[in-house]
């Protein structure tokens, strides 16, 4: 027998299935444009996490955990930090100081390289913030169900 979803509210479930993709897309937009516009990794991470939280409230913890399990979240959180530290170390390898993006040869000018460097770092921050937010939410949701 299929497990019953947490909420049978048709409005919530329809609304969520329309809104979640848009929220995630918006989160990615904020993430990518962190270097040149308002936003950045932290904000994007929170928006992405909010999208998943909406999904979880509408379709239940079990469905959400099929997509993002607690273990996977741990790995994503660590990966985000590795990206951050990795970009910093890359700058050291190319002869600069830690996080001196300008020396990494990925853009035409040091300023452009800086932009890409910052975007990489923002990506790392976004992943970490999203997964930590979600795992906090999972913990609270689990506690209330008494599991």
């Amino acid at each position, binding site marked *: 027998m299929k497990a019953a979803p947490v909420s049978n509210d048709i409005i919530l479930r329809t609304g969520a299935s329309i809104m979640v993709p848009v929220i995630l897309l918006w989160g990615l937009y904020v993430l990518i444009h962190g270097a040149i516009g308002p936003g950045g990794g932290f904000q994007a991470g929170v928006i992405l996490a909010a999208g998943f939280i909406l999904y979880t409230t509408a379709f239940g913890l079990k469905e959400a955990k099929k997509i993002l399990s607690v273990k996977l979240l741990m*790995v994503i959180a*660590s990966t985000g930090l590795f990206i951050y530290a990795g970009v910093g170390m890359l700058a*050291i390898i190319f002869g600069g*100081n830690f996080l001196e993006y300008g020396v990494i040869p990925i853009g035409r000018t040091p300023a452009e390289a800086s932009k890409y460097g910052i975007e990489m770092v923002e990506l790392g921050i976004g992943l970490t913030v999203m997964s930590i937010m979600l795992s906090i939410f999972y913990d609270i949701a689990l506690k209330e169900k008494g599991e």
Partner: protein
Amino acid sequence: MITDHLPILLIVIGFFGAFFTPIIGMIRKELCSPWATFITMLQFLISLLLLYNVITAGNISYWLGGWQPPWGIEYAVDILNAFVLVIVAGVCFSVSIYSRKSLGLEVPGKEMPLYTLYILLSTGMLGIVVTGDIFNLYVFLEIASLAAYALIALGDRQSRMASFNYMIMGTISASFILMGIGYLYVMTGSLNMADLSRLIPALYGSPVLLVAIAMLVVGLSIKTALFPLHTWLPDAYTHAPSAISALLAGTFTKVGIYALIRVMFTVISPSYVIETVPVMSMLTWLAAIGILAGSVLAIAQYDIKRMLAYSSVSQIGYIILGVGLANNIAMTGGILHILSHSLMKVGLFMVAGAIIYRTGIKNIYQLKGMGKKMPYTMGAFVVGALSMIGIPPTIGFASKFYLAWGALEAGNWVFVVVILLSSLLTAVYFWRIFENVYFGVHETEEIKKDEAPLSMLLPIIAFAVLILLAGLFASLPIEVIKIWVTGVLP
């Protein structure tokens, strides 16, 4: 050259290690502890290299992201930094070896979160010491504090309450520190320590500077557990897992003292806090009261860890006394006491943990016959205790000698009496343990030898040997400290 990047590697390796621990924990739980040992060993080696570089080649300044200070964050290492770095990283490294068995018994099945927090705590403390940016200092202080609250809460049943109390006190202290930094920033527009020290003299006499100093002193006093603000410390150290008590006793309060010294003597000039505003003499009197009160309260305890915790309150008083007297000799003694107290207290807490590991006994009066049961462990305890009392040739004698000499130099007889009286009180509370451990049972009684496991015994013996070696060759650290002290104090 990679050696140019040592200050940042110290921190990056720590964060990398901390966030890699969950992945290792997923593969195999048992690997977390060796991983933590490996990371802290790297940090220890880097700290040693930094100390060597600073002594041979002068101060190090590292600009994060290549941004020139005061705009960018600077990691500035001088002799005081490097000296404290070596102590902190060394303690973290040796306790991580010790902790595998001890924490395995006291906190079973939680290796993954535990060692993640362990490495975070170690990195946070090293970050406080290595940074040359006052706001960065606050950030690392929070990282280390949060890790410490969680680690303490992993202890016995009352540990959650102790951790909660500590969290409240710690948050109040962090708020004070943050507001102090905020006031300094509002007035000067700078957060770089070297830059602040150039800008602050223009503000002498401003009441805002006084408020900033008051807030920083109160906030850091809570973190260091200076006497009237020490209330979080005994509970936290008593109920935390033994290895964590050892780690915190040896490092965290010392890092707080380091931050106090750095803020008072580098950011704000010594002449201002000594002569214009008598912050330092106020601290010395509090420290003197704390030395006596800590010792007296330690005598009243029967739980061995609690007794050691109160003795920590007293020993922190010694360090602040030396710093507060602020003459050449007392200051050297105070900073040397950071080293000697770390060695002694970590060693003693590790012994307490080993006794709990083997027998589960915490009460001093039940330790009868332990001298026959765990001869090497108790031998190390005696060395540590003698050093606490201040008997030559241990390092405790050297630092107390310098402190007393410094008090004489300052012409303040009261403090000399305080130091001597406290030494006697220390002898009283350690004698109770000696009496039970060595003279509690009849000579002919047969007690089976049941020594602590090697991974616990080795760090304990190493600390006992270090206490003796450091005492015999005390001139070495003293020479190093004197270079820094003469540069700061006239």
